């Protein structure tokens, strides 16, 4: 095998990878949350950044109120979760928008504290 052949294969690999990456990154990127988006996008994956305003720990489920123009409720099913949150923490939430008793909320799949 010639070295130039190997380099050509490597170049094709990178280009194919780039094309796939570009296509898939536009498809799977969670939409940044906006208040209007929450009401419109039930069932969609969203990302939300904001300060924790209030935490209501019910044991197996935790309700986190995140400061936005109008506060958003994030639901975290906490079984096995070791996440420790305090009011005032800056967090990033990845989750799905869900409608519950006429209100929209985000069911968290992942919450990270940003420092």
């Amino acid at each position, binding site marked *: *095998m*010639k*070295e*130039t052949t*190997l*380099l050509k*294969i*490597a*170049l*094709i*690999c*990178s*280009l*194919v*990878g*780039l094309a*796939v*990456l*570009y296509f*898939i*990154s*536009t*498809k*799977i*990127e969670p939409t940044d949350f906006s208040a209007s988006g929450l009401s419109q996008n039930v069932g969609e994956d969203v990302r939300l950044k904001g300060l924790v305003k209030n935490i209501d720990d019910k044991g197996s489920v935790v309700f986190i109120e995140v400061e936005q123009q109008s506060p958003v409720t994030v639901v975290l099913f906490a079984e096995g979760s070791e996440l420790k949150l305090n009011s005032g923490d*800056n967090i*990033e939430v*990845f989750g799905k928008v869900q409608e519950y008793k006429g209100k929209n909320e985000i069911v968290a*799949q*992942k919450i*990270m*504290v*940003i*420092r």
Partner: protein
Amino acid sequence: MFPEILVAIILGCVMGVITGLTPGLHINLVALILFSLSPVLLGYTNVVAVASFIIAMSITHTFTDFISATYLGAPADDTALAVLPAHRLLLDGRGHEAVKLTVIGSLLCLILTIALSPLLIFIVPIIFEYLKNYVGWILLAVIIFMILREEGIDKKFWALIVVALSGSFGLIVFNIPNLKDPLLPMLSGLFGVSVLLLSLSQRVTLPMQRATEMIKIKTKNMAKALGSGVFSGSLVSIFPGVGPAQAAVLAGQIVGKIDTFSYLILVGGINTVSMVLSLITLLTIQKARNGSIIVVQQLLQSISTGMLILFLAVALIAGGIATFLTLYVSKIFSRVMNKINYSLLSIAIIIFIALMVFYFSGIIGILILLVSVSIGLVPNIINVSRANAMACLIVPVILVNVL
């Protein structure tokens, strides 16, 4: 997200070159540092970009670590068995060819694994369920076969002695409490320093290194090497306790006697395959068998099929970039080798390895290095395969799985 991931891939590839060229600097360590910094990093970027950096670094590392194994004789667990054939080619003025062969293995196995990934997503859970209780027995059969493959009763006996010596040595080393990085002194002694000492004692002079454009490999041999690389690399990512080193030994037994070129292609492919397949097992059996991919798992918790496709694309891009980088750096090493005294270089490398061992594993590491060098010299004296010394990693896995 696309530009952020691209930057992460480029930075990851650069870091992969650094970790690959520095004996003792493991990708797992860099991945763990990144994980501990993730709360700060996520203020500037997103979690997918951090994961992409780790994947690009890990893939590039599986390409570049053969440079230090070939030119410096400093092996890691995935390159240990490549040191001897690569060193032979280096002493024949063909160090760059040795590296190029491992790059062929890494790149083509990467492409094959990604092409087979739709199939592997279904097959991996089935194989895992079926074979998970037999790993120890399979490895025991491999080690018995390795001994029996030596020619003549004398060599079989001495192969058994080497297996017993290195197996017991591995058991002792892995049971030393609070020992950081036991693999560095053990493998550097068995497969690196001992080879360099033999070169020194035989007053080996390095011939002019040449960078040939063409390598002739029979298509049948290449297909055999790539197939075995993908198969044994899969074992690493599916079964607990099986590392690239054990997989390389297993693959060597499966393909039988193959030429040096095909063997280097095979060994080159194993670690790249295991890295890519770790991403697939993360989706299919929710298990990562690889340190850096475990950090990706910690960052993301779980991955979706879409995310897996994204990471496979990251691996493909990183593999392409790593091919260019590895061949470029190898040519630089090749040119430098022409200008320096090999005996002095060997002494410098031995001192460097000893210093690295002392830094990472302390005085106990130096003791392990001395013992492993002594054991590493035995196969050469009695003329049996040095691969038998891999028992230091295989015997502990057999005992954990069988007993």
